[in-house]
């Protein structure tokens, strides 16, 4: 069943001992790092590094849905935009939505629509933005994982976090979380997203072929992995809000800057080089 045409003869994706090109076993994930609340202007945000993937997610809302005719008087819309940066892949990616990213946006927004309590916010929309800064296979899973943390960070009510992980088949072996080479030269890739608490499947796609048994195996691997990723997501959210007082104090100024003495300043005639404009600006910013 191996599709030999696409595989360089000498390339073995997985050796006899069951070790993959990057040294992982069949059931191992790439290293994952999740940070919550990385953007200031968005209502919620998250950043995920997943092997070679770097993904940023931002969430706005619930906010007034535009255009107006899209508003649903019964519930909120959950809209998603998945976008890859031109520099995210080795050849420059032509910027803008394409067939692939429109599809991914659609399936991701539908995955989230099934967990968000949309009926609490009629006529609004919850907008999710996923920006892939660097791609290394499995960006939709990384994006989904990030977006789910960003949604929770934005305070959007939802039934559970959504966690996502892919598995696939390389060299005839069902493996977890394929990397770029494995994805390109392997036989199948099957991303899925689940609601960890209930085990519901909210996204399931497949590229390539798996037999029924292989598919069962792939699903088992992914579900076991999502439990681990779920813990990382929860940990990221907890870290975001559990900063100790000292850490928080580091960022907030202990006391306002010294007041510039306005009456004295005004007696200095315009053109005086000593006028301290910086101090003036500082004061104004402090008050804004």
């Amino acid at each position, binding site marked *: 069943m191996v599709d030999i045409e696409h595989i360089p003869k000498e390339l073995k994706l997985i050796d006899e001992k069951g070790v993959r090109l990057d040294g992982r076993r069949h059931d191992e994930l790439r290293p994952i790092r999740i940070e919550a609340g990385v953007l200031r202007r968005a209502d919620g945000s998250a950043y995920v590094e997943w092997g070679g993937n770097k993904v940023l997610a931002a969430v706005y809302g619930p906010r007034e849905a535009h255009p107006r005719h899209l508003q649903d008087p019964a519930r909120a819309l959950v809209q998603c935009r998945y976008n890859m940066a031109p520099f995210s892949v080795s050849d420059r990616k032509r910027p803008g939505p394409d067939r692939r990213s429109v599809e991914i946006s659609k399936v991701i927004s539908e995955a989230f629509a099934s967990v968000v309590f949309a009926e609490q916010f009629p006529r609004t929309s919850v907008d999710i933005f996923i920006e892939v800064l660097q791609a290394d296979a499995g960006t939709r899973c990384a994006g989904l994982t990030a977006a789910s943390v960003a949604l929770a960070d934005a*305070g959007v*009510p939802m039934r559970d976090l959504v966690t996502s992980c892919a598995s696939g088949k390389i060299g005839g072996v069902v493996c977890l979380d394929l990397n770029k080479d494995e994805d390109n030269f392997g036989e199948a890739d099957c991303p899925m997203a689940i609601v960890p608490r209930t085990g519901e499947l909210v996204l399931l796609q497949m590229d390539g072929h798996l037999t029924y048994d292989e598919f069962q195996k792939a699903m088992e691997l992914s579900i076991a992995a999502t439990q681990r990723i779920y813990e990382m997501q929860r940990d990221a959210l907890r870290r975001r809000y559990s900063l100790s*007082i000292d850490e928080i104090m580091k960022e907030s100024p202990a006391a306002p800057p010294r007041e510039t003495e306005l009456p004295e300043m005004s007696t200095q005639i315009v053109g005086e080089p000593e006028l301290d404009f910086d101090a003036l600006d500082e004061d104004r910013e402090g008050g804004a």
Partner: protein
Amino acid sequence: MEGKGPVRPIVIPGEAVGGPRLKPGPGTYSEGGRIFASQLGILSERDGLVSVIPLAGRYIPQRGDAIVGEIVDIGPSHWLVDINSPYPAPLHATEVPWHVEFGDTARFLNVGDAILGHVSSVDEIKRVSVTMNSPESRRLRGGQLLEVSPAKVPRVIGKEGSMISLVTDLTHCRIYVGQNGRIWLDGTDGDTVIAARAIRLIEERAQAFGLTESVREFLESAYRHADGRPSA
């Protein structure tokens, strides 16, 4: 600095927060007889009601809320008020303390003006209307507006207004806090700067214990530093 120590435990959407004998309150939902958090927040349990006090989120208007709004549009018989929520909020000409002739709305409130008002009604599809027919409602002249996360407004106000009265007493500012997360401050330049910083401090440390005390300390030290200077 005092008030060091534990930060309140945080629950995450999907986390089990209560058993069968409890009732699900705001920020939670029940499924199969168990209660789960639906929002990121701090767990609270009172009188058999489990709820999650959210740490983030948009302002969703409720009837009777005091709000600080900004006029964004004018019609012949109404104004449109931005109340920092996902829903547009009209203020009808009959809902203001002045007698307004049809088409004469711009003489009373203009785009960019700030008002203190109340949410008079919210229906099931979240159509909101705002009123200024209450004694404390007014057009806010001068001063400055500050925005905080609506989820943190209860901390800014404090128990029975303890926090906000502390800030008003020590800074001698006039302060109005809207449920929608907008805060209007007025006072001398130096005082408003300090009051604004105190509010930012409350917002940043909303989940800490002993917040009132550390805010008091902050304000006192701020005034010690500013001592000897005329407060503008």
